[in-house]
């Protein structure tokens, strides 16, 4: 199947893509911030100076710069830095879990919608339906039925992200299906699963990766919102959202406790968004205007 093996998309220019990203200082900055955040989150149990849930009422409201509490403490004397590190851990956990959920369901549906005309209408009704329940309403419903937890928050966010995945995978499938090498494979009598799995999916990988990189920060913000409202991670487990919700009560007295977690969320989301943007530009310079 000589024709069908002509590679297009991600496979052709992987090294070119890497080179383009390494030439972009903004992308490097994003990657570095991301790497630091991941290290802090993954190794939080070893790196954090204090137990995130340990209260020290005698050390409450220590301002940033206090010896032993670089970013200060909150109303219960808990170390803000340690809590942020564990909060990052939770954020990344939810972000990855949510995006994985949306990909596992969205990618096959998107492939089918783009490939089989008969199913297209059915799937677009499904996306309409999901879109009719904004993610917060989904989370509200899920929290009402199954209780509030990290897992349920991730599922609600993931479900809400499915339509976006379907839309992108569907249009990419439509595009690839019309290309010569896929058409050739179909003419040569390749079965649908073969064409989808061997030709379309690998070539759609780049758009799926880009979609995932911009969906993760959205999911992280979503987790923060849910936890802030009390619909996500439950206290005393540290989460950037619950930290903000706690800090709201004493924000005038200890503004750092409200400022720092927000800055952490923003930097994390910003790093993901920058990396996602750069990745998209590097994969398709012509689409960089999008």
């Amino acid at each position: 199947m000589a024709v069908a093996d002509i590679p297009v998309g991600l496979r052709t220019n992987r090294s070119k893509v890497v080179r383009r990203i390494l030439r972009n200082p903004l992308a490097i900055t994003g990657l570095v911030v991301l790497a630091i955040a991941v290290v802090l989150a993954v190794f939080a149990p070893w790196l954090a100076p204090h137990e995130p849930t340990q209260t020290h009422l005698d050390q409450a409201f220590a301002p940033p710069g206090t010896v032993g509490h670089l970013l200060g403490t909150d109303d219960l004397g808990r170390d803000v830095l340690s809590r942020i590190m564990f909060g990052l851990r939770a954020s990344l956990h939810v972000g990855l879990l949510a995006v994985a959920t949306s990909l596992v369901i969205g990618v096959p549906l998107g492939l089918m919608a783009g490939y089989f005309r008969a199913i297209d209408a059915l799937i677009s009704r499904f996306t309409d339906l999901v879109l009719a329940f904004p993610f917060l309403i989904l989370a509200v419903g899920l929290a009402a039925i199954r209780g509030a937890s990290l897992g349920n928050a991730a599922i609600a966010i993931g479900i809400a992200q499915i339509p976006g995945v379907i839309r992108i995978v569907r249009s990419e499938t439509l595009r690839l299906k019309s290309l010569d090498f896929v058409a050739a494979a179909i003419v040569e009598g390749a079965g649908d699963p073969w064409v989808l799995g061997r030709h379309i999916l690998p070539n759609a990988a780049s758009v799926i990766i880009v979609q995932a990189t911009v969906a993760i920060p959205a999911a992280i913000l979503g987790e923060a919102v849910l936890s802030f409202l009390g619909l996500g991670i439950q206290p005393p487990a540290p989460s950037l959202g619950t930290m903000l919700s706690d800090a709201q009560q004493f924000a005038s007295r200890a503004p750092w406790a409200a400022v720092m977690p927000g800055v952490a969320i923003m930097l994390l989301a910003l790093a993901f968004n920058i990396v996602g943007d750069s990745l998209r530009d590097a994969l398709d310079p012509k689409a960089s205007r999008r």
Partner: protein
Amino acid sequence: MKRYLLSRLWQSVVTLILATIVVFAGVRALPGDPALALAGEDRDPESLRAIREQYGLDDSLLVQFWQFVSHAARGDLGRSIRTGEPVGSMIAGALPVTIELSILAILVASVIGVGAGVVAAVRRGRPAEWAANALALLGLSVPNFWLGLMAILYLSVALGLFPASGFVPFFSNPIDNLHHLVLPALILGTGLAAVIMRQTRSSMLDALSADYIRTAEAKGLSPRAVIGKHALRNSLIVVVTIVGLQLGALISGAVVTERIFALPGFGKLTVDAVFQRDYPVIQAVVLVTATAYIVINLLVDLLYSVIDPRIRVRGDA
């Protein structure tokens, strides 16, 4: 045009029916006896029987569904198990706050987003584009509830520029009403503004490279007419659909914003209902949101076809 409208209408009806089924099934998916859940803490056999009676929980699912739909259609969404108030009137009281907040936020976001998007597209490769892009990236990455907290902390509490919380109905004092809503609307609008900006920029760049722009320039039109009329009019068609798609995010955002600024709106109703396990209210809130989303998207689609003559007027060619 007519066919397009009918098919769009039909799609919306199907989605609405599906959404109703999902909400109905959701309540039945509550752990344990729905009557227990619906009754909350008031669990004497008498009220349980009353609830079973009211919701027809002993009937078949089909009958129950019909009851649910026909009651909902008549505006009867049940009563709150906390206050005993009719859910319909609770929602009617809360909705205007949220609607006003959302309209203001969309207004703010459109002005900022379209303006920045046009600037970024026209000033391509210059500092202005860089600044607009950076602003959009920040807008997408900032948790807007945190931005709200910061605004209250520094603009309201420290500087006293705006009231930190509360709401005054528009018709009792319009100035005071707007004064209370400016900050929440700005905060709610930031994320949407970022999305609109990016979309405007990309569709403006598409439009600016189109052949008809070359024609407009060859006609000797001023840059103002070329950009502000020929390019923008085409880009806005795309932007309007995007605003429609962002409605879900806007509703979610409104819930949080209301919570932060203590606005007595739909969002507050939702969150309170969840914490009080006020199931009739949750059920109604979810149903109303889904319906609103579907109806507004239908309206956006109609608007879309009004601005785009290719949809409005069928071609003879």
